[in-house]
């Protein structure tokens, strides 16, 4: 196996980590959409913990190993149109996902605080509002759609 093959594997593995993390986030978001008790929401947030790591590894790994690969392979350049398009999509997807994730981090923090105050079993309107925040949901829709667009660009390589 050549060095380029390893770079490609790491790039693809990072892409798997990123999409797998988004899949976990969507699964948790859909199944937890009607949750209003802190104790219940904390159970869901525990499932998302590995995805919190995977999304960082995947986001950074796809960019770093992707650019490295474009530099390493003679067939492609970092300034190729489809590579630049993917980088721009990556930047917007990352920003949208990060902003959307802030609301869920606030919800997790609030649920933890309420549980530590002994109010874990009591329904919380504030917690439910954070978990059903429409802006956060749309930011995550945009982020996921752009990640899908990156995958399309990577496979179709328009202009290459």
């Amino acid at each position, binding site marked *: *196996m050549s060095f*380029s*093959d*390893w770079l*490609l*594997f790491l*790039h*693809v*593995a990072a*892409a*798997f980590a990123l*999409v*797998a*993390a*988004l*899949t*976990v986030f969507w*699964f*948790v978001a859909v*199944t937890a959409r009607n949750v209003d008790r802190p104790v219940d929401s904390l*159970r869901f947030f*525990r*499932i998302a*913990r*590995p*995805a919190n790591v*995977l999304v960082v590894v995947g986001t950074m790994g796809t960019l770093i190993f992707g650019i490295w*690969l474009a530099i390493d*392979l003679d*067939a492609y350049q970092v300034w190729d149109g489809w590579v630049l398009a993917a980088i721009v999509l990556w930047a917007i997807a990352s920003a949208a996902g990060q902003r959307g994730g802030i609301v869920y981090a606030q919800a997790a923090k609030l649920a933890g605080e309420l549980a530590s105050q002994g109010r874990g079993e009591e329904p919380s309107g504030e917690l439910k509002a954070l978990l059903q925040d429409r802006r956060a949901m749309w930011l995550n829709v945009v982020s996921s759609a752009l990640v*899908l667009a990156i*995958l*399309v660009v*990577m*496979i*179709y*390589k328009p202009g*290459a």
Partner: protein
Amino acid sequence: MSAFAVIRPDDWNFPLLLHVLGATVLVGGLVAAVTALLLGWRRDSAFYTRLGFWALLAVAFPAWWAMRIGGQWIYSKEGFDELETEPGWLGVGFITAELGGLILLITIVLTGIGMRRLRNRPDSTSVLTRIGGVLASLILLAYVVAVWAMSAKPD
């Protein structure tokens, strides 16, 4: 050079997209299921088993079909079915896909039965769902190896 790195005929792209998208979502479904089933070993078994079961049935299982159909499609498009000897990486892909699919089905059945049993006694644990958690972890591990074989394509 790998299929990812070369310029392919345009009509190969959609099957490959279906294969890759299915595989990535499959891994995501397995990550959610493994996390839930392993969390259920120690606490809230009924709750986590239910989530693990649905992650397997509603996410991983349909994604497995997308991965497998896309894979077979690109296999015939690339003409691998006309080769006398298949490359080793393709064999790894086939074995992990087929065997992984069978184990995935068994895991869904075991977890489903465990979920039904836990419904009647939510404070206990289920051996079946623990076996399901181990099997789902093994499938996930096998698919990590498959990602390596399919992307790096070692000789």
